[in-house]
């Protein structure tokens, strides 16, 4: 799995902890990495993803459907799930403010045996680390 993930585009390094089942992925400096592709690659290597979190810098935008989204690059954004923290980001939509967040992109639904994200990844904000 480590080798399989390491071959994905944008991946600089992969650390796997067998004890707690955690996989740490460090993107290359340009940060152009596709989390959905990582979930698929993990699944393809015979392991299911129970949970995925990311730390990212980006801007809050409104997507073409009017949903609040977090843009990590001009062509990559994640729709933000509503929670207490996301409400505080509404005011930043469309502004040039760059924020760093930690958020959950995927959680395997309870009772589902096999992991794998079939729907587009949604971002649940867990922590807003800084605003600039």
């Amino acid at each position: 799995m480590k080798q399989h993930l390491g071959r994905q585009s944008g991946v600089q390094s992969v650390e796997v902890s067998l004890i707690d089942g955690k996989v740490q992925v460090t993107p290359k400096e340009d940060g152009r990495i596709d989390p959905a592709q990582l979930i698929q690659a993990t699944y393809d290597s015979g392991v299911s993803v129970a949970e995925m979190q990311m730390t990212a810098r980006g801007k809050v935008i409104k997507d073409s459907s009017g949903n609040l989204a977090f843009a990590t690059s001009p062509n990559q954004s994640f729709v933000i799930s509503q929670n207490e923290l996301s409400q505080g980001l509404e005011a930043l939509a469309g502004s040039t403010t760059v924020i760093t967040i930690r958020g959950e992109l995927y959680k395997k639904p309870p009772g589902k045996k096999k992991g794998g994200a079939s729907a587009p990844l949604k971002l649940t904000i867990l922590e807003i680390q800084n605003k600039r």
Partner: protein
Amino acid sequence: MKAKKLGLLLLLGVTLSLVSQAQIQHIEMRVEGMT
């Protein structure tokens, strides 16, 4: 003329730094079924 070039360079630098500011820094997954 020099000031104009410096200004343009500064603007380019600021633009590039803003673009590079947005990115995924780290991803952590919890997986199941790993042997």
